[in-house]
């Protein structure tokens, strides 16, 4: 690695420069089109889950807010996109924007509650709000279809050209494109002055007011942004699979996304993408086993990650790399 530049401005600039490994990573996301044409449906699921995990990373990995109810915004986005296609039109991009705005609105309102709490109460509040929304959606049968699922979504061709096909080619290309654009925004955000403040909140919540920072305002803002991103992820799943079911809002989805992010490594942007890929590929490979045994392995994995790999797979890899470089 080159020695850090003496000029502090150039040094900070160098931190946000694109690395060759990153470019290679994004090129590799195109490989499924040629290597695994039969698995594009799964690739689409991974892209959506990666986006969802990325949205959680902003609040959990960067601002240190543990949320057990993040599926609320995923679900709001999914139902909004569904309703939008049913009652407005089937154009996908306006549907995405509508979903993002609606999820952002939910996020903004709940952020006033969330920003007041820390620790267990915060976990309970996010869990409670998530469960509240889940049972509300279950009761609001006339909007959501309740436990029967939401029916009647039909999407137009993407950009008027590409129909959502049976093999998931369009779906994966579309979701991957959206993931990449949102990723660019998230990358920009964490390298911004605001991103630095978020890391400050994560590192030392007590010190922030002593340097004049209004942590709650920062938290409200990042929570809203994160909700909008989760809403986009939900909208993608609604548009590409053309159904929405109640489990878009479920506790399992909230828990799964935390597992994915922690498995990959929180607070490092790519953690959620890596974690989502491993989690969903593993689940696909072990789809034969009963769900309760699937969760056995998730449990074992969580215990191992906490005990042996506290920064997730990417954290472990970068520690290994640092050790290797020092030799």
């Amino acid at each position, binding site marked *: 690695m080159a020695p*850090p530049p003496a000029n*502090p*401005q*150039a*040094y*900070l*600039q160098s*931190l*946000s420069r694109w690395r060759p490994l990153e470019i290679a990573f994004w090129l590799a996301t195109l490989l499924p089109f040629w290597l695994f044409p039969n698995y594009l449906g799964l690739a689409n699921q991974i892209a959506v889950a990666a986006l969802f995990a990325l949205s959680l990373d902003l609040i959990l990995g960067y601002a240190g807010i543990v949320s057990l109810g993040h599926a609320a915004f995923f679900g709001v986005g999914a139902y909004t996109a569904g309703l939008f296609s049913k009652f407005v039109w089937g154009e996908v991009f306006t549907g995405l924007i509508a979903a993002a705005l609606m999820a952002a609105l939910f996020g903004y309102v709940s952020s006033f509650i969330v920003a007041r709490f820390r620790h267990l109460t915060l976990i309970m509040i996010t869990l409670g709000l998530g469960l509240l929304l889940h049972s509300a959606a279950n009761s609001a049968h006339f909007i959501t279809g309740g436990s029967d699922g939401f029916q009647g979504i039909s999407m137009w061709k993407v950009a008027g050209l590409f129909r959502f096909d049976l093999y998931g080619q369009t779906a994966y290309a579309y979701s991957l494109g959206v993931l990449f654009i949102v990723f660019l925004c998230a990358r*920009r*955000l964490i*390298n*911004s*002055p*605001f*991103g*630095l*403040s978020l*890391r*400050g909140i994560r*590192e*030392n919540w*007590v*010190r*922030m*007011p*002593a*340097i*004049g*920072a*209004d942590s709650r*305002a*920062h938290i409200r*803002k990042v929570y809203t*942004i994160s909700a909008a991103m989760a809403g986009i992820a939900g909208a993608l799943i609604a548009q590409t699979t053309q159904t929405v079911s109640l489990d878009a809002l479920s506790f399992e989805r909230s828990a799964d996304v935390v597992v994915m992010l922690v498995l990959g490594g929180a607070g490092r942007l790519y953690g959620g993408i890596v974690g989502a890929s491993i989690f969903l590929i593993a689940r696909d490979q072990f789809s034969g086993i009963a769900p309760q045994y699937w969760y056995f392995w998730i449990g074992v994995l969580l215990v191992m990650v906490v005990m042996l790999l506290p920064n997730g797979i990417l954290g472990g890899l970068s520690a290994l790399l640092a050790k290797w470089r020092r030799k």
Partner: protein
Amino acid sequence: MSVADTNASSGFALSTRGLSRSFGQLVVARDINLNLPVGARYALIGPNGAGKTTLINLMTGMLPPNHGQILLGGEDITALTPQARVKRGLARTFQINSLFAHLNPLEAVTLAVCERRGISPKFWQNIAVNKEAIEEAYDILTRLKLGDVAYQTTRELPYGRQRLLEIALALATKPKVLLLDEPAAGVPQEESGDIFEVVASLSNDLTLLFIEHDMHVVFRFATHIIVLVGGAVFTEGSPAEIAADPGVREVYLGKRHHG
């Protein structure tokens, strides 16, 4: 260094009036009235448990008082949040390091500078475009002899350097009044002088209040000394007056328990 300006017209930089706080039966601050003139170097001394840190917590808003007022440059700030007080120019450091373990000093001080300059809400621009803020942060680090470790993770810095970073973070808020809670706590005695040299070199229009146990340091750097005992001001005066006060001596030798 900036030149001292003539804002003495506003009277005192920081005052407290009848500041009191208790936890149930335990009184930790009893009717405290203080006036710190602009540019003063005050030392706050007293036996363990006298309520010195509590007083700083009350002044900075980390602990609400039961009674009394706090005035900053004549303005009543008693009802303001801690961060609003910082924005008005009242900064503090912590006795036990309260740093950002995984940020480096440059990032940590830039963070504080960005918060003060109001650019921290900007989530759409790269931090590196804020040339002035970054240079200001780097300048503070160089002044505090932290320039050579600006890119090292805070957690890996030697302890003495971390103590200096505590002060650097407070300075980044451009305080008018700076409250230092044992700036050299835990630093070997031969190094604590270095930290106070840095403190002494701060600009003359900055008003200082520091807690310190080492009497040599107190008499060397303070222009005025406040003795706190049992949550109340026992006495205050110039170093010479305090040195000559037999009551203070007794308090420190432990013969008297309460003032």
